[in-house]
């Protein structure tokens, strides 16, 4: 086992990780650890744009953007964080342009902007052109531009190093009111080198988690195979809470049956949704902004059309995205990639035929709780010095219960930058925390279990069944009954997981082993999502309970905080669920009092 020493270690090389690395790398001795190669991360799959109130093509300002973000998140957004994001959005876009990002341009040569769901002029009066974009490959351009600038600044990457543990220590500390508590501190991380199977310990003054999402808990998803919630999982196992995990976004327009994302930019450019009767059904659900309503509303409307028998296709299980009234030249200029996806994967020609679509699991609004400086919280208000998180792994919370389109590319840039600066500045004034004795012990035990277990259960079979039950019972419509079903299923999966067999017994590139470890994270996170969904007896944003169809601000205008807690047993818990303790955290409200959310 090798031990490395860096001021700052960044876990993950997607948008947030590399944006952080550009800042941190110029200020402190920094390493980026990624389980992939850089530019393989799923930031590159983002398509439509990145919103900022540049007002390049029509009147706009950051306060409207803040309001849209808060309303879009159904008022569960921390408004101080949303304000930071909307304000800093403008510089974030300009920073990227200066780094070389090839944005589409207006006739005057400025950055062009287009419409996107939920982004409006003057507090909901009409759609506004706020999304800065590069065709329908904005995420690709962001990822490439950030990697190019990491090369420019000689950022040190450890490719295919899979981080499996956070090294934390706890010491007694006293609060201002005299109460004693255990203060966590970060000492480093443990990683597994995929090429050799060797463990590497990285001691660091600061650690930034930028590991992305966990979409693979669902079957139909726009997410990459590699998005298995590793960062959330390792934090949770170390006693760090996870915030608002019941809120998962289902993007309305995934290619039917496949889940591959077709950007909301299609609707921003004028495409519309139709049911089996050819009807533009969004006129009924969101009369003012119709097809450009926020994603939770559009996804639920689509699922409802299918449920009421107005779905299309042999099994009447999808609806249609109609671009046929748009000029082919306009489609080629603005939406080249997504139309190619429709041709390649479904054999549909979008110029002349509507494209089969259905909601696809897309984005975790919840994650590792942080403050607006991206410092990770160990409870509602105690930070863990030196530990930061940014991007989808984090919950700051700018997305509340439903993220607006484009705000994730914005989130990774604004909070990735903040994390890089904060982590480097902290490292300058801090000492290394001593590594715990046998820092690799937990990781060795984890891998050993997976390697030697020979009960014959297959990882892929358990994973498929998990994804099936999550799609069937935890998608856009949920009830106490459907949630209970998932919990019962997960209990049986956990038991089977203890008896898995990994066929590959080698050390080199043992991706079989990797998938087994990833499944452990998926099971753990699915359980947290489901338990949090059970507790939230209301409907808000992406979380819709058919047995509690209204938003209930009195009881639930608060974040949920899930802790791993072995002291909670099936007997001691009201819901007979062991191992998870749920608490709540107040929502930060600055300017906007909750209102009824209509579009």
């Amino acid at each position, binding site marked *: 086992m090798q031990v490395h020493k860096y001021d700052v270690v960044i876990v993950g090389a997607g948008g947030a990780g590399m944006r952080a690395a550009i800042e941190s790398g110029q200020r402190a001795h920094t390493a980026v650890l990624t389980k992939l190669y850089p530019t393989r991360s799923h930031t590159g*799959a983002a398509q439509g744009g990145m919103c900022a109130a540049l007002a390049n093509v029509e009147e706009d300002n950051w306060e409207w953007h803040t309001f849209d973000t808060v309303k879009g998140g159904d008022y569960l957004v921390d408004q101080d964080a949303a304000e930071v994001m909307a304000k800093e959005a403008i510089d974030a876009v300009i920073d990227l342009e200066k780094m070389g990002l*090839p944005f589409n341009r207006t006739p005057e040569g400025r950055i062009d902007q287009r419409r996107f769901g939920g982004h409006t002029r003057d507090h909901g009066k009409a759609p506004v052109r706020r999304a800065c974009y590069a065709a329908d490959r904005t995420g690709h351009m962001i990822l*490439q531009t950030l990697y190019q600038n990491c090369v420019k600044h000689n950022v040190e990457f450890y490719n295919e190093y899979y981080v499996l543990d956070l090294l934390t220590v706890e010491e007694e500390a006293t609060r201002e009111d005299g109460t004693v508590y255990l203060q966590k501190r970060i000492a480093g991380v443990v990683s597994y080198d995929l090429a050799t199977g060797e463990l590497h310990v990285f001691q660091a003054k600061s650690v930034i988690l930028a590991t992305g999402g966990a979409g693979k808990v669902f079957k139909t998803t726009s997410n990459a195979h590699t998005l298995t919630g590793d960062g959330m999982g390792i934090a949770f196992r170390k006693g760090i809470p996870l915030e608002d995990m019941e809120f998962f976004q289902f993007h309305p327009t995934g290619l039917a049956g496949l889940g591959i994302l077709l950007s909301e930019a299609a609707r921003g450019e*004028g495409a519309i949704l139709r049911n089996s009767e050819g009807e533009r059904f969004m006129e009924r659900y969101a009369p003012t902004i119709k097809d450009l309503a926020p994603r939770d509303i559009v996804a639920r409307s689509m699922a409802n059309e299918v449920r009421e028998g107005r779905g*299309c*296709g042999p099994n009447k299980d999808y609806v249609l995205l109609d671009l046929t009234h748009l000029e082919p030249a306009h489609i080629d200029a603005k939406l080249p990639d997504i139309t190619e996806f429709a041709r*390649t*994967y479904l054999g549909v020609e979008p110029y002349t035929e509507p494209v089969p679509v259905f909601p696809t699991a897309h984005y975790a609004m919840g994650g590792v709780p942080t403050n607006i400086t991206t410092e990770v919280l160990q409870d509602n208000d105690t930070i863990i010095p030196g530990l930061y998180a940014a991007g989808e792994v984090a919950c700051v919370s700018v997305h509340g219960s439903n993220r607006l389109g484009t705000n994730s590319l914005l989130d990774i840039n604004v909070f990735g930058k903040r994390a890089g600066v904060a982590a480097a500045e902290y490292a300058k004034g801090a000492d290394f925390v001593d590594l715990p004795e046998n820092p690799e012990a937990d990781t060795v035990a984890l891998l050993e279990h997976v390697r030697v277990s020979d009960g014959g259960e297959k990882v892929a079979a358990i994973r498929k069944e998990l994804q099936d039950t999550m799609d069937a019972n935890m998608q856009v419509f949920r009830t106490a009954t459907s949630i209970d079903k998932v919990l019962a299923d997960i209990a049986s999966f956990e038991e089977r997981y203890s008896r898995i067999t990994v066929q590959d017994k080698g050390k080199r590139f043992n991706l079989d082993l990797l998938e087994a470890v990833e499944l452990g994270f998926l099971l753990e996170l699915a359980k947290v999502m489901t338990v949090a969904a059970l507790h939230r007896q209301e409907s808000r944003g992406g979380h819709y309970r058919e047995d509690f169809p209204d938003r209930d601000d009195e009881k639930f205008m608060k974040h949920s905080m899930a802790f791993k807690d072995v002291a909670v047993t099936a007997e001691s818990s009201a819901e007979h669920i062991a191992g998870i303790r749920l608490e709540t955290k107040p929502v930060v409200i600055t300017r906007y009092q909750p209102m009824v959310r209509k579009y």
Partner: protein
Amino acid sequence: MSPVETAESAPEPASKIELPAHLGGGGEIPTFDVTLRVRRYDPEFSDESKWEDFRMTMYGTDRVLDALHKVKWEQDGSLSFRRSCAHGVCGSDAMRINGRNRLACKTLLKDLDTSKPILVEPIKGLPVEKDLIVDMEPFFQSFREIMPFLINRDHAPTKERLQSAEERARFDDTTKCILCAACTSSCPVFWTDGQYFGPAAIVNAHRFIFDSRDDAGDMRLEILNDKEGVWRCRTVFNCTEACPRGIQVTQAIAEVKQAILSRQV
């Protein structure tokens, strides 16, 4: 600034239209049997590489990646390959399929001749690590050498730099590169001479040389004028054919050659 209605806002589409009958659907998704013949290699257990056949039933829209997953998840967990996004944007799963470089996630089985075994091998010219996994480091080294980042010596403006739509269009094609190495590892010159920069590095140099905001075109042209630079290209067009993003790679290389000769960008 006052709100403007742009020419782009299309007229409101109809609230209701007649849909063609076939969208009502019917019929079933066809299934078929395929044999995947995969080049296996794991130096931890043997120095020899060998072909191994896997037989399976697949569906109409399945891709080569789905077939590889079926092997890994149901038949042989030790089969190793890289993949991530699974829809052709991350560049992880370039491999040689029936003798041509492609992305496994973008190659539909039904588009191949499934009456014969489908040959799957690692891309050529880079050291094989295990099965379909190659060492990508030499590839990324060439990429880094052409200074793949915007260099602008002017004082930075407070807002964005201006660029006309035409100037932006000049290098659009080469911004699409996903660094999958399908082009470079399809190039016969690269196979015989690992020192050659290869098409992907030249494509990425092109992306900056022809960007109106960049000031370091001369430096990049100098680098590519090297004996291992653009002049090694024999215009075989393998790279253009291999590119899963449809980049006109050979044309980009020709434009760089032309720019070196004329020293005009």
